[in-house]
């Protein structure tokens, strides 16, 4: 099996896959990202995935649903997903929107997210 191409900057640290998200979470990005991460999981088999949210400035309920779909797909492949470094504006916005984020496992920093998997 050949190594999948990864236009999105996926980085593996130990047994954990780090996925930095940047900009805005639109349909195409999430579809591409989901495919990339699933292909990576099949090829490298990391034990967990951390989505680094530091580069996401705006997230509405629909974006969160897209993210949830990806997280559920990844979880079905046996890799739990932790969100790290969610910005204050994103957290406040989702709370105000009364979004359902009950499925989210979030840690303040990437380091704390890494520790979650130890």
């Amino acid at each position: 099996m050949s190594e999948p191409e990864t236009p999105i900057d996926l980085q593996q640290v130990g047994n954990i896959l780090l996925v930095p998200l940047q900009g805005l979470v639109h349909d195409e990005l999430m579809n591409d990202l989901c495919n990339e991460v699933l292909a990576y999981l099949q090829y490298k088999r990391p034990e967990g995935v951390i989505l680094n949210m530091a580069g996401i400035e705006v997230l509405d309920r629909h974006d969160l649903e897209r993210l949830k779909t990806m997280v559920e797909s990844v979880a079905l492949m046996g890799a739990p997903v932790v969100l790290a470094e969610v910005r204050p504006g994103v957290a406040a916005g989702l709370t105000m929107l009364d979004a359902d984020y009950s499925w989210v496992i979030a840690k303040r920093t990437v380091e704390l997210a890494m520790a979650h998997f130890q």
Partner: protein
Amino acid sequence: MSAREKRLRIIRSSDIHVVVMAVQEMAKQIGMNTGASAALSTAVSELSTNIIKYAKSGIVTTRAVRNRDQPGIEVLVQNHGPGIEDIELAMIDNVSTSGTLGLGLPGAKRLVDEFEISSQTGKRTRVRVVKWG
């Protein structure tokens, strides 16, 4: 149209991000604080997504406004979609008429300082929001 006003068309989902970026850029230009900018951007993203989901296309107009010394941004989100039959019902949390996420209007209202909505069934919906800061 002045440099402090932008009119953007929404036809596809990628247009939402152009609108959000326009709001963020305007917020930076007028010196709006980051919390207010993020809140307004989130509200506009939510309202713009409704255009794609329910009306197919629409127009978003952003305008820099000022109240004494306080900078602000006014955003007008308009579409000629099916309209909203019962606005009062749509303004209640967790009400969806289509089994989906719903319109998110109460949440969008909480994120801004001023919120006005008008709609004519079968003709149009117009939402005006203002955020100060």
